[in-house]
């Protein structure tokens, strides 16, 4: 880390930079991450597990800093801790309300340990920054291979459990009554989410991960309530954010994570504003509208025993 002030101005030679081999890695890695994010993002929102996704990223922090400490690849530490954390969150929280407390507690503990491991290791401060904010430009060919394998695992798994997962996500009680293995699916999904998070952390980092997994999916759901269409749109937003973000970072010498996150959030904001205009009868307004009430000639029962 240098203290030298970098120039954030327009870079004349951005095109050669963008077309250089290491940028190709960054674009390929970012695209794989965007595809992975698109696969899980819709479910994260439908299952109300946005906070868990956020927490999983933080749980990866001690894994990454701990990996430096014991001398294994950062990605391995990240993966082990994310998947482990996913299982813990899955086991601890039965109901959504419990899950929030359990998740937050695990999150705080993990971040603390991340800091502790980092203080033990002498030269891991760049790891810390990389995990917190991501470093798409540091993605290696080996990592790309791992990413590609994880993406295939993710896609095949989501495809295999798609319908029961959607069923249990939309209404777990009804699914359970139909003998769907709700709890097993919940664990499977948390592990898949952990895999996506492990990848995404390396692209945009722990702190900005929300913007790549949750925000594009939320944007897509505003545009369409159809699951597959929402997943496709969400993936497209993520990919565009990554590509344009990387290009802008090359053009203006900005951190790629910053540019990617700003674009994803910008798209969300734009869609949100347009949606307000197009659907003035918003959900809230519709709900507040009184329902038509029929004649009151029926006997009004005594409800005092409620």
């Amino acid at each position, binding site marked *: 880390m240098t203290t030298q002030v970098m120039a954030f101005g327009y870079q004349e030679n951005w095109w050669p930079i963008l077309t250089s081999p290491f940028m190709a890695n960054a674009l390929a890695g970012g695209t794989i991450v965007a595809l992975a994010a698109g696969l899980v993002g819709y479910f994260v929102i439908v299952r109300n597990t946005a906070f868990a996704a956020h927490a999983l990223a933080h749980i990866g922090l001690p894994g990454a800093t701990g990996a430096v400490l014991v001398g294994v690849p950062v990605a391995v530490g990240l993966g082990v801790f994310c998947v482990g954390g996913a299982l813990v969150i899955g086991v601890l929280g039965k109901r959504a309300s419990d899950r929030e407390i359990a998740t937050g507690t695990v999150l705080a503990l993990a971040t603390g340990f991340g800091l502790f491991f980092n203080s033990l290791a002498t030269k891991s401060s760049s790891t810390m920054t990389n995990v917190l904010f991501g470093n798409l430009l540091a993605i290696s060919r080996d990592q790309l291979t791992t990413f590609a394998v994880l993406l295939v695992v993710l896609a095949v798994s989501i495809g295999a459990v798609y319908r*029961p997962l959607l069923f249990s996500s939309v209404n777990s009680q009804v699914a359970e*009554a139909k003998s769907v293995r709700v709890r097993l699916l919940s664990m499977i999904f948390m592990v898949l989410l952990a895999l996506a998070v492990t990848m995404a952390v390396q692209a945009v980092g722990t702190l900005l991960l929300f913007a790549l997994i949750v925000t594009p999916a939320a944007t897509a759901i505003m545009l369409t309530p159809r699951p597959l269409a929402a997943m496709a749109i969400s993936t497209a937003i993520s990919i565009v954010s990554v590509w344009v973000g990387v290009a802008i970072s090359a053009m203006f010498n900005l951190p790629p994570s910053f540019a990617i996150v700003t674009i994803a959030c910008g798209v969300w904001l734009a869609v949100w504003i347009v949606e307000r205009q197009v659907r003035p009868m918003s959900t809230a307004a519709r709900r507040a509208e009184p*329902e038509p009430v029929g004649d009151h000639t029926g006997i009004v*029962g005594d409800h005092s025993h409620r």
Partner: protein
Amino acid sequence: MVRGGKLIWSEGTFEVPAGGIIAVIGSNGSGKTSLLNLVLGLIPAASGHVRVLGQPPGEANASIGYVPQNYASASGEAIRVCDAVMLGLNGTRWGFGRPSREDRARVDEALNAVGAGAFPRRRLSELSGGQRQRVAIAEALVSRPKILILDEPLAALDLRNQREIVQLLNRLNTELGVTILVVAHDLNPLLGVLSSAIYLLDGHAHFDTLGGVVEEALLSHLYGTPIQVVRTPQGELYMRSTL
């Protein structure tokens, strides 16, 4: 349908005959939800045995439609009515697949049967409470169940919607021959259509015909407050607390 055996609150031995609309009543905490979970095979009986449609609980769940108390409260923004109902049909199948023409026709049929045929492409979150309850019933109905179980289907509805849902249940019962098990803390809106009731009293489960249940001493004991049963000149029954 045979449902005989000891239930977890202990000593409820009865058979519920197929074909009627049966209320499940009892004060808060008496175990109504446990009874449903037992029937669905989600919790085991500590002792005794239970048969649902002649099979152990859980085995016949494909023939049971379930309407929970809170339907799609959180995720309604992200799904359309028709897709939610489709899940009642293909949500238990693994993998990924385009719904067949036949499945889509069945979804339309179920939506029309509950009076929700006009808004298949709306988001669940855009619906009123009454509309959402209809969609929940359609989702339970689409798999053509023999038994329909509803947990407090009238609790959050206004009088008009309560009456319409009760009429709907009655129609499903008579026209499709579905046996309906309905948990309700307020019996009044249902009294006109019920055939019998399972009541949970003093830690035991009992089953009786409607005539046996709608009896002042029993209801007063059941609700822990003096209850008067009134028959209107039109022949309608209703009960009220005289406290």
